[in-house]
């Protein structure tokens, strides 16, 4: 049976601004997940600036969170965090 591919708009051009596009979830490429230690985090927002996929979120009241639908696990955020608050944990350590 022929595979059914996802529908793609012309040249993959999508409306903006939008923080999420359900058609383009790419977080499933990740095998290391960033995890923040909120005790250490100073909320300096360095990780927010550096994340190439705009996955660091400060919108929620409880500080830093990561949008795992799009986070590729590149580790840039953990490298730039000045206080070492972000660790990278293998995906298989999580239930979902």
């Amino acid at each position: 049976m022929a595979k059914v591919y996802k529908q793609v708009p012309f040249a993959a051009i999508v409306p903006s601004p939008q923080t999420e596009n359900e058609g383009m979830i790419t977080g499933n490429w990740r095998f290391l997940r960033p995890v923040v230690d909120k005790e250490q985090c100073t909320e300096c927002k360095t990780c927010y600036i550096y994340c190439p996929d705009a996955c660091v979120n400060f919108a929620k009241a409880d500080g830093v969170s990561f949008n795992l639908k799009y986070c590729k696990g590149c580790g840039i955020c953990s490298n730039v965090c000045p206080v070492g608050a972000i660790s990278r944990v293998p995906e298989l350590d999580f239930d979902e």
Partner: protein
Amino acid sequence: MPIKKKGTGLTAVADAWQLADIDVSASYPIRPYTAVMAELAKRIANGTMQCEMVHGEGEHAQFSIAHGASMAGARATTGSSGVGVTYAFETYSPIAGSRCPIQALVGDRTLDPPGDFGSEHTDCLTLRDNGWIFGWAQDAQESLDNSLMYFRIGEDPDIMLPQIVAMDGYFVTHIAQDYIMPDQDQVDKFLPKFNPKFRLDVKNPVIMGPQIEPEMGPPLEWDRHVVMTKVKEKIVEVTEEFGKVFGRKYAPFVEEYLTEDADMVFVLQGAHAVTCRSAIKYLREAGFKIGLCRLRWFRPFPDTALAQILTKFKVAGVIDTGTSYGAPCSGGVLSTEVKAAMSEVAGKPIIQSFTSGLGGETITHEEFFAMAEMMKQTLQAGKIIQGGTWVNFNDYHEGASQINAAKHEAAPSK
């Protein structure tokens, strides 16, 4: 009123770009391309042309600038030569994939072995698999005309693909010749303003070139493949309309010369066709029933047109003015493509590969005669006697082998 001008292939393209009222041109010097950017800069500085000229810090940046400008809705141009073309390589697929119909001028130049600046088609042919439409002009007039036709085809809402106006470095880019510069009204009638459906616009923001899931890749590639097949119909349509508006009629895909009664035919593209035609006149006097098929397009490859035309002949000698080391039958890219296009065609001719005119060498009459002689032997034998011939290197005719022997003897010993 159209005016008669004396200029080069590069001034002719600068004229085409001025008449097309381009918005942005991205530049980075490399000969022989450089003269077009110099020409544009001069016109902009003199106030005779309105255009944003942006200098990249290299060819990769240069093509990226044109890419961005096109995304913003500009009619954008750029170009390069030789290793400059290959330095920008990463940008070609994204430009075609985001369906930005920028136009690039390539004045062909060899890819370096150390600094041979002569003309070869190898630079352009290396990017044949990226979704750009292109073909070679044989003179200044055709460069100008192709540029206008390519804008029209590439910017068509059903197509939206980038184009390369390719021309042999120096032979076309730098040799002064007469050409007719069309009238602005004619161009305006033929080429509407570029008005893409999608563009970067703060009032209606879009994301272009987002990261996608693997399952979304094949449909995008399928789209690019399908549109490439549609380009052929558009070429026929636009070439015909061009003839009506400007009065210059071109064969859409393959220009034939003295082929009516021919049993043998040279197949090539670009400026060497000019010498080839004059060589054919002598060959005809010597009793060779030989003609020429000059390809006007390389991508999309005119396989259907070639299949119809080449079956009229018994032997086709495909002349490559570029290299593809290790390619099948010791041929170049063009001969490989012609053979592939003809592979399932009934009644096809015997196709013989020649490589000649590398490094900016002209293909001389004698070399055309030698190739014709070889094709005649093939015709008489009904099969190829020597395949994949590098003219002057494979020693099939005495004169050439003697010259080469003398050259080797004169070379300093290690």
